[in-house]
């Protein structure tokens, strides 16, 4: 490996080095606070190394990974989300007896997996990154409570995600049989035939399963509901984001969307996700399940940016809209699950997950209620929030590439979604107090993280210029 390759790999090396130090620290000195701080330091160092070491032009590392502005942007989001998750989890887990330190190791390994996926250009690294992420998530879901819900959620996720991985692996084997190569770029090179198409469809089925797009979405609400709130936030953002980044690079590099069977299948899945996700969210009484269905719909929206790649000559527009949307989605989802985590505690009777738990929140804690209100409005795509900017970019990319059926689904889906997001806000203004729920003590670090996130949702809504400029700058070196 050359110096340039080592330098490009600096984020991965930093986080792995930090992981080793964390393991040693935990082995000799078991303390929740020390483990928490060392995880934060590791992830902060990773953020710094991404900011300083991301190369201007794409740098290929050992043919398996490629580091460019695209990968750097997503890695930055994942590491930042890791920091947010650790911050929220500290207060959430604090006070539970025994074995809290391993949680932070798992957050760091999951982030390593997500970062690998953002850089992958070979099926081997794709699969390894995906499995590191999934294996860490199984334990994170089952982590805190002695109750049945997290274990049940983890078991469901383990089995269904195992099936998805197997489907994907079989698809990769079929692609290898047809093309004789495991690089994304050689997918379409001198290979055709039914096995080749079948392989691509199986691969995309596996990915759609993990992204919880509609025919493969059944696991999502159960897992979101059963998992502890900070972990749910992590699954909803990093797990989905990493898969989407991977899918985006795969589509860009391999030109898989030029296969009409794949294009039609993905369009159908996207439209179904937008409509069915929003319709199923309407009647939910549980905020976590509501957000699960809403995330299914949001993944459907994001597929527009992916499908726009095939129709546009200038792919940078589509990629830019996907990057803006993902940032918005990360901010909104992290804030929503942050509010749930801050209202919950691993010690007590489960999470504050019912919408009725939030009735009267405006009178009890106006600031927190405002944060949740802004988030809900942003998820619905109201102007002056980041959700609107994100949807605007998506719409622009869709219009430019003439994806009218998908845009109609986006409009209808968004219109339906306003109802259930407003319902949450309405519940918060109700006068009655929740009968059972005493909201636990909060700490300044969780509160300030949450307020910062809520402020970012609002500020980026009317002043998105810095982020747009940053993305443009990162994409300038992006060749394809």
């Amino acid at each position, binding site marked *: 490996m050359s110096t340039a390759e080592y330098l490009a790999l600096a984020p991965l090396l930093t986080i792995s080095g930090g992981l080793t130090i964390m393991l040693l620290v935990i082995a000799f000195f078991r303390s929740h606070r020390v483990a928490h701080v060392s995880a934060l330091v590791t992830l902060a160092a990773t953020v710094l190394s991404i900011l300083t070491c991301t190369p201007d032009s794409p740098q290929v590392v050992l043919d398996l990974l490629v580091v460019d502005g695209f990968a750097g942007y997503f890695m930055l989001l994942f590491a930042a989300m890791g920091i947010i998750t650790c911050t929220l989890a500290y207060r959430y887990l604090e006070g539970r007896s025994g074995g809290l330190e391993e949680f932070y190791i798992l957050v760091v390994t999951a982030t390593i997996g997500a970062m690998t996926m953002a850089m992958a250009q070979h099926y081997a690294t794709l699969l390894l990154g995906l499995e590191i992420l999934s294996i860490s998530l*199984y334990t994170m879901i089952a982590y805190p409570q002695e109750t049945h819900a997290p274990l049940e959620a983890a078991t469901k996720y383990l089995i269904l995600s195992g099936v998805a991985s197997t489907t994907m692996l079989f698809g990769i084997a079929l692609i290898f049989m047809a093309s004789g190569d495991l690089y994304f770029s050689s997918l379409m090179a001198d290979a055709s035939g039914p096995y080749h198409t079948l392989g691509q469809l199986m691969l995309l089925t596996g990915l759609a399963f993990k992204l919880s797009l509609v025919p493969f979405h059944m696991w999502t609400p159960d897992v979101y509901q059963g998992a502890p709130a900070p972990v749910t936030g992590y699954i909803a953002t990093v797990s989905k984001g990493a898969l989407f980044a991977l899918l985006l690079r795969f589509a860009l590099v391999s030109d898989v969307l030029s296969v009409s069977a794949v294009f039609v299948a993905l369009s159908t899945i996207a439209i179904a996700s937008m409509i069915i996700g929003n319709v199923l969210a309407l009647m939910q009484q549980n905020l976590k399940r509501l957000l699960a269905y809403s995330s299914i719909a949001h993944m459907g929206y994001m597929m527009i940016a992916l499908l726009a790649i095939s129709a546009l000559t200038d792919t940078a527009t589509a990629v830019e809209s996907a990057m803006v949307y993902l940032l918005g989605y990360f901010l909104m989802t992290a804030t929503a699950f942050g509010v749930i985590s801050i209202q919950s505690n691993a010690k007590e009777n489960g999470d504050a997950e019912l919408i009725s738990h939030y009735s009267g929140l405006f009178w009890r804690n106006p600031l927190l209620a405002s944060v949740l209100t802004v988030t809900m409005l942003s998820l619905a795509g109201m102007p002056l929030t980041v959700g609107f900017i994100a949807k605007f970019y998506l719409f622009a990319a869709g219009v430019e590439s003439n994806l009218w059926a998908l845009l109609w689904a986006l409009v209808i889906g968004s219109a339906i979604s306003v109802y259930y997001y407003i319902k949450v806000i309405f519940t918060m203004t109700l006068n009655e107090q929740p009968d059972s729920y005493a909201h636990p003590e909060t700490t300044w670090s969780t509160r300030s993280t949450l307020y910062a996130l809520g402020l970012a949702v609002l500020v980026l809504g009317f002043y998105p210029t810095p982020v747009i400029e940053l993305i443009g700058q990162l994409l300038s070196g992006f060749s394809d």
Partner: protein
Amino acid sequence: MEVFLFYIAGFVSLTATMLVITRMNASHALIYLIISLLAIAVIFYLLGAPFAAALEIVIYAGAIMVLFLFVVMMLNLGRSSVDQEQHWFLPRMWVMPGILTTILLLEMIYLLVAPTSSAGISSSGTAVSPKEVGITLFGPYLITVELASILLLASLVGTYHLGRRYLRARREEIA
């Protein structure tokens, strides 16, 4: 001839796998699973990957499957299960696994004694020696080896955490 052997091994593997998923008894299913893995090892050998074939036997058929078998056997404790287990291993239960393994054994003997197929290569492709596998793993695929180690670390930490909780609950139950 090697192509013919490939199809026989493939047939054995498919038959054994079908029997795995139709058995009502976990121990019997596991025995068929071991046969299926042995057949896959023969296929690997025929395709020119002797190292992968050896790993398949040592790790899958050897370590993991025996572990499975032990767990299945240890979960059923008590007098009634001993009687039950005596019914598991009636002589007629061994007929089918015996036939399948004999086919694989004959294939292996043929491969070892037949002079033309000493390298164990099928009609196309080249044999990959263990040395080449090692050089590839620690050369161009170095990063996948490191990532695999992180994958194992994550699963180890996870298993430790979940297992410890289970053991603690068991201790409280006994006390």
